[in-house]
């Protein structure tokens, strides 16, 4: 690889790699490598990589190792499979030879320095130091090499005697050259064995890999193109502009958000109170609905029905059994909604809001599905009751009919959803994981012999992007089935934070709370005003706390003010200082029309949302 290797993927990837409820655990870091210039950090859970804003990221899979892990996790390859043991043994030995080769280079360098010192007739102290250094290098090399040689020369009869003899013969020739030659011989053998395992996995089950990428920041999320994994078009190459004066979409969103937040603040509503009230309302509505439906009785009846149906092995009843079980599960959603416990006061705003959205969404989905499912079950029960009067009781049909009538559209819940989403939009919270998963045009790549899973992400073509934005790459491992619903057997994601080093200027929108300096406007104290600023920042390589946390900015701010009634238009120009990635603002300026100085503090609602959301972007 031309680029410096950087292991990722797949916290790539909170690469971390996690698995869904039903998913097997696969260790993605063993077989996915993210490569990009400059840094070289191992792929670890929940790690975020810094990438420069115009870079490309290569995502390289070690397909044989992945296939092997997959085969083991899916039960297609036994853990004590001799072939597997042989691969593991050879990989272990190969590791020693690769390391020995590296250490041999160090040894030769140390020996060369000793030789130079001898030729230069250096004094005895220098010679002695060089000698010690060379002996130490020799020992490191020899220790590693000896282990590899002993292993390859040992009797590994528990694996395959004949194969071992043939391999040893090859190694005997290769050892006369470099250690790398030996490692190459062993690698060739490992590749051959891996192919055999891949063939077995391929024959056992068809598995697809889906990879998606998206960029999030400034209150928006957008999918990005990954070669071979989606039908998204490749954007035009747009290098990052260090002095940007035109307003990007982010600034427009910030101005809109500031405007709405200003209205919210003016009305005296408090965000947290709004959200908490919404969650309480959800709970109340769920409880009311649950009582109307008499969910627990309904569930008990359905469970009894399913049990009765299962007792008869009639094929025509098996569909009914599934329908009844499905309904029991659906009703469980409602039961859970009645048990919502509000997040504690210490919970983050983002957590509260996202919880509320998920809960309301879940209830609405349940309500949409329930009537149809109940009616279908009722119709089927009525059709089969004549044939099977001993297992289908007429009472259950009546109970279900009553439930069907109770499940009308609940406008109250829809209203709550709207209110919560308002707050969500002001702060720019969105559920990125869910969005990416629903990206249209995703293409699955099959795991199999000769199928490359590699891809790359070109940030230069990623459209609008800003320092501090997050790129998230997700991986889903999905078996190919005829089922409507996708079954994810493993998944992971990795985050990358976009960086710009050096000075740059960007337009930002914010909501200022402006306080006129003189007593002439004593009635006005920290009035909200929307502002547009051009803020300069400096990014430093290797200074994460500065770049991620403090990130102070200095710039020029224009704000629309309203100090007095005789001017319809009052423009304020001020100098601004920001901190925490333009989250908090302080400044001093002048109202040009009212000819009055003012001070202000301010906030960028979307930056606030980004900050809160940061801790929320975790494995799905």
């Amino acid at each position, binding site marked *: 690889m031309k680029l410096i290797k950087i292991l990722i993927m797949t916290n790539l990837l909170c690469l971390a790699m996690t698995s869904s409820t039903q998913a097997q655990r696969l260790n993605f870091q063993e077989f996915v490598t993210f490569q990009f210039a400059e840094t070289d950090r191992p792929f670890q859970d929940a790690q975020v990589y810094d990438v420069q804003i115009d870079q490309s990221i290569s995502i390289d899979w070690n397909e044989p190792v992945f296939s092997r892990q997959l085969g083991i996790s899916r039960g297609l390859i036994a853990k004590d499979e001799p072939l597997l043991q042989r691969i593991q043994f050879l990989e272990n030995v190969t590791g020693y030879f690769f390391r020995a080769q590296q250490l041999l280079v160090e040894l030769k360098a140390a020996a060369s320095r000793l030789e130079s010192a001898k030729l230069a007739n250096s004094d005895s102290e220098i010679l002695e130091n060089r000698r010690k250094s060379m002996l130490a290098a020799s020992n490191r090399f020899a220790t590693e090499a000896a282990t590899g040689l002993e292993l390859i020369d040992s009797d590994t009869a528990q694996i395959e005697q004949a194969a071992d003899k043939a391999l040893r013969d090859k190694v005997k020739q290769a*050892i006369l050259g470099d250690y790398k030659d030996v490692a190459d011989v062993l690698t060739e053998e490992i590749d051959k064995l891996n192919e055999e395992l891949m063939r077995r996995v391929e024959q056992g089950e068809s598995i697809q890999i889906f990879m998606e990428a998206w960029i999030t920041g400034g209150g928006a999320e957008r999918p990005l193109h990954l070669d071979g994994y989606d039908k998204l078009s490749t954007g035009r190459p747009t290098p990052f502009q260090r002095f940007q004066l035109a307003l990007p979409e982010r600034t427009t969103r910030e101005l809109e958000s500031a405007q709405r937040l200003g209205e919210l603040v003016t009305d005296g509503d408090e965000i947290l109170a709004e959200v908490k009230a919404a969650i309480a309302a959800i709970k109340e509505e769920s409880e009311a609905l649950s009582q109307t439906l008499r969910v627990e009785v309904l569930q008990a009846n359905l469970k009894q029905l399913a049990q009765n149906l299962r007792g008869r092995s009639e094929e025509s009843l098996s569909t009914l059994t599934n329908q009844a079980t499905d309904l029991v599960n659906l009703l469980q959603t409602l039961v859970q909604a009645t048990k919502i416990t509000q997040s504690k006061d210490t919970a983050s705003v983002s957590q509260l809001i996202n919880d509320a959205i998920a809960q309301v969404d879940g209830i609405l989905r349940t309500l949409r599905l329930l009537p149809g499912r109940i009616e279908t079950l009722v119709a089927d029960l009525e059709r089969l009751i004549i044939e099977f009067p001993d297992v289908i009781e007429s009472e259950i049909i009546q109970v279900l009919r009553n439930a069907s009538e109770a499940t009308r559209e609940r406008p109250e819940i829809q209203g709550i959803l709207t209110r919560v989403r308002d707050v969500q939009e002001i702060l720019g919270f969105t559920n990125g994981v869910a969005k990416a998963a629903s990206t249209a045009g995703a293409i699955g790549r099959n795991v199999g012999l000769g199928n490359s899973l590699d891809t790359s992400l070109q940030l230069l073509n990623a459209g609008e992007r800003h320092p501090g934005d997050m790129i998230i790459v997700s991986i889903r491992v999905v078996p190919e089935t005829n089922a409507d619903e996708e079954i994810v057997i493993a998944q992971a994601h990795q985050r990358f934070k976009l960086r710009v080093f050096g000075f740059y200027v960007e337009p930002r929108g914010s909501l200022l709370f402006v306080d006129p300096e003189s007593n002439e406007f004593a009635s006005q104290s920290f009035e909200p005003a929307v502002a547009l600023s051009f803020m300069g920042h400096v990014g430093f390589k290797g200074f994460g706390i500065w770049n991620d946390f403090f990130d102070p900015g200095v710039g020029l701010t224009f704000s629309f003010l309203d100090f007095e009634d005789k001017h319809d238009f009052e423009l304020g120009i001020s100098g601004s200082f920001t901190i925490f990635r333009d989250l908090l603002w302080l400044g001093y300026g002048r109202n040009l029309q009212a000819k009055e100085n003012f001070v202000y503090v301010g906030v960028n609602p979307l930056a606030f949302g980004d900050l809160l959301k940061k801790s929320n972007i975790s494995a799905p």
Partner: protein
Amino acid sequence: MLKNTLIVPETDARLAARLVQEAIDTLDIVLMFVFGKDDQAKQTVEWADQLCNKTRISDTFNIRKVIWIRNAAPATLRTVLNSFLGDKPVPRVAALNFHDQLKGTIPEGGEIDPIKLEMLFVEAQKT
């Protein structure tokens, strides 16, 4: 062509002893002695010489070196060899570390292949 091997003369025992002693006294190298002049000895020397290329620094310096003693019988030479072999019979192959200590041997009649020779070299390189 043997680039890393000292072929000890058979006809001049005193010269042979001196050359071997000088090789032993040379600092910062490990030595592999190969004894005999049959086909197996020739093959062994060839392999050992090739294995020395791994650590070759320049035409004049290598931390590995092969000493091929086709005839170890002369008493003067044997005296030098006894300094590390002691009273043991002359093996087919012997390896000395940086401090001129015997680190391993392959006895007469023992199986020899490049892996075993390399193992002797790396054992001798351990400090």
